[in-house]
């Protein structure tokens, strides 16, 4: 007798078969899948952008090298900068929000999931379009990540590569705005019973501040790109100064808040890691929440400090607001220090990255105050000092937060633990590499090396500092390769069933995502893994403390 196996349709009660495999991934409305797609895409692009950076550091390691020509070098720094900001650090931050926010607020999904998925696709296709510029006859766009006109118009920058850059960045930014909108709506309107606004985890609060900036500031970039596209069709527009300066205002109205979009989620991830690995509730929760919102609003008011040297901005105002940023930043820093002071510290890889974030980002922040002061900015503008400052903010700061977040939440996302030994090695290589690469750049800039030069003469005396910087870049490359190996090896072992299984809460987490299984089920929480009572911004810590009290009460004295 032969038995026909039940068809898939029969198994699903006559409903259409849910897509599986890659089709299931790319059409899923599950916020976790969309989040993993976003984060995974940005990590792949991180590797690609790293290769561009290594090529530049190889070119600059010695004076008067000709590894790549000037036009190619211009393409490298343009796509590296554009890629890292538009396609890696910003989307990764929003992708973390897509994955984590519904879990942290106890919701079964994200608001407007189809729109969220559309946002991911626009981002991914935008990245592909921008990179496609390399395949055009004149190469990729070559005018830097902010692409001021008239240099970026079609007379000075001919070729389809620049047009593809505009189209790609436009698509990706539209996708980011869409994802930011759905994350904001989720955290404001989809909270579970008991999750009041003042019980939101810090990471979710950081996403509120981040997404408000995305909605308020990112449309200005779309307008700037639109202006540039029109100007490329009719370059005479940029004969008028108002549109050149107008472009700079439009661009930097986006371009400064985006720095905080690339900062707050990582700062909050670090804050969560510090609290968990110190075994303490986060110190100064309400003050930190308020400072995040004030910080975000102030960050909308400082864009003109990027235009000090134009002489066509209200320098006094922008300098004042830039320096005022110190106040909320200080509150956040002292809250982080207050959290670890007196805690029982555990030095697992997420904690190592979180601890290194604190002093390294401080260097980036304080040098930001320096360049936010016109008298210093006039001296170092468009020099390597600025390159050092922004890399301390975005790599030594945000990227360390990014890696802290990856090591922290990897077990929750995948159900397996990342290798700790490789993680520690990755950390030390990155600490050495980041500081060896970017610290000499401060000196280079102060000594007068302009940014974006493809080579320099031996007599200028920049050689040994550049060599140090390039050696540091090799450490960074080794660290990132180790990280990639660690992730791929762990995922391979998971496929083979040999990886170390992650428990639901491997670190003793404080927030709701650690109450569900690793990885979480489709709708996040199940009767076997229900949402626990939400009693504060650290509900799982409350639960453990109540259980400890109960255990003490019950123990025979």
């Amino acid at each position: 007798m032969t038995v026909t196996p039940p068809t898939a349709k029969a198994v699903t009660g006559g409903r259409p078969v849910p897509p599986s495999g890659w089709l299931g991934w790319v059409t899923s409305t599950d916020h976790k899948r969309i989040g993993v797609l976003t984060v995974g895409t940005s990590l792949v692009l991180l590797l690609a952008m790293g290769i561009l950076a290594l090529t530049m550091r190889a070119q600059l390691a010695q004076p008067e090298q000709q590894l790549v020509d000037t036009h190619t070098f211009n393409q490298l720094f343009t796509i590296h900068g554009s890629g890292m900001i538009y396609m890696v650090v910003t989307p990764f931050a929003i992708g973390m929000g897509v994955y984590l926010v519904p879990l942290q607020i106890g919701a079964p999904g994200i608001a407007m999931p189809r729109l969220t998925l559309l946002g991911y696709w626009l981002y991914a296709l935008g990245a592909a379009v921008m990179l496609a510029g390399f395949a055009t006859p004149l190469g990729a766009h070559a005018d830097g990540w902010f692409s001021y006109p008239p240099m970026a118009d079609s007379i000075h920058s001919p070729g389809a590569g620049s047009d593809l850059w505009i189209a790609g960045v436009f698509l990706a930014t539209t996708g980011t705005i869409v994802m930011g909108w759905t994350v904001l709506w989720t955290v404001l309107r989809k909270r579970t019973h008991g999750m009041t606004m003042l019980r939101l985890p810090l990471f979710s609060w950081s996403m509120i501040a981040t997404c408000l900036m995305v909605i308020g500031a990112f449309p200005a970039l779309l307008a700037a790109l639109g202006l540039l596209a029109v100007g490329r069709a009719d370059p005479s527009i940029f004969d008028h100064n108002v549109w050149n300066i107008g472009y700079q205002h439009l661009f930097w109205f986006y371009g400064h808040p985006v720095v905080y979009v690339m900062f707050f989620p990582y700062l909050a991830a670090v804050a969560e890691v510090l609290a968990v690995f110190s075994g303490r509730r986060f110190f100064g929760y309400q003050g930190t929440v308020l400072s995040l919102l004030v910080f975000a609003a102030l960050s909308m008011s400082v864009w003109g400090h990027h235009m000090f040297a134009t002489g066509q901005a209200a320098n006094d105002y922008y300098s004042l607001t830039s320096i005022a940023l110190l106040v909320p930043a200080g509150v956040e820093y002292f809250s982080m220090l207050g959290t670890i002071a007196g805690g029982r510290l555990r030095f697992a890889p997420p904690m190592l990255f979180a601890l290194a974030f604190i002093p390294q980002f401080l260097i980036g922040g304080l040098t930001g105050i320096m360049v936010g002061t016109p008298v210093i900015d006039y001296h170092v503008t468009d020099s390597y000092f600025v390159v050092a400052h922004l890399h301390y903010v975005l790599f030594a700061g945000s990227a360390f937060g990014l890696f802290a977040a990856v090591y922290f939440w990897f077990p929750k996302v995948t159900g397996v633990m990342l290798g700790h030994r490789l993680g520690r090695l990755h950390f030390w290589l990155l600490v050495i590499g980041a500081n060896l690469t970017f610290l000499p750049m401060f000196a280079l800039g102060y000594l007068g090396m302009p940014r974006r030069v493809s080579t320099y003469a031996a007599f200028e005396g920049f050689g040994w500092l550049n060599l140090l910087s390039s050696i540091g870049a090799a450490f960074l490359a080794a660290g990132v390769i180790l990280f990639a190996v660690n992730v791929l090896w762990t995922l391979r072992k998971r496929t083979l069933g040999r990886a170390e299984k992650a428990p639901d809460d491997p670190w003793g987490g404080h927030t709701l995502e650690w109450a569900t299984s690793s990885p979480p089920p489709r709708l996040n929480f199940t009767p076997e893994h229900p949402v626990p009572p939400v009693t504060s911004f650290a509900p799982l810590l409350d639960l453990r403390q109540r259980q400890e009290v109960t255990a003490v009460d019950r123990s025979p004295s």
Partner: protein
Amino acid sequence: MKRHLPFVVVAGWGALNGVLLAVLAVYGESSMVFWLWGGAVVLLALVALAVLAACRSGPDQHVRYRVPDRGAGAVVPAAFGLLLVALAFVYGLWLLALAGPLLLVAVALAVRGTTAREE
């Protein structure tokens, strides 16, 4: 008040932007800057109103959720359609002839609820 806290957060944040913009007026800037930042403040006010409307029409916290359980088959053709629209500005408007049908397919898929329920 507690029920409307999400609205207060968004509206308050937009208002803080408005205050900072007003301070900028004391220092003086080109009119374009006021249109730019003022536009952002108006956009944030609209977001705040949307949040207020949602707060008034539903609970602040949820016990039951309406979760879309169908996959999003329309999304991929929609995204590729928009990609072609963007590329039309690079390679010529003839690409709109390809983008249009793709976007129509996406609309049809969205209306029909194409893909299966996710388990």
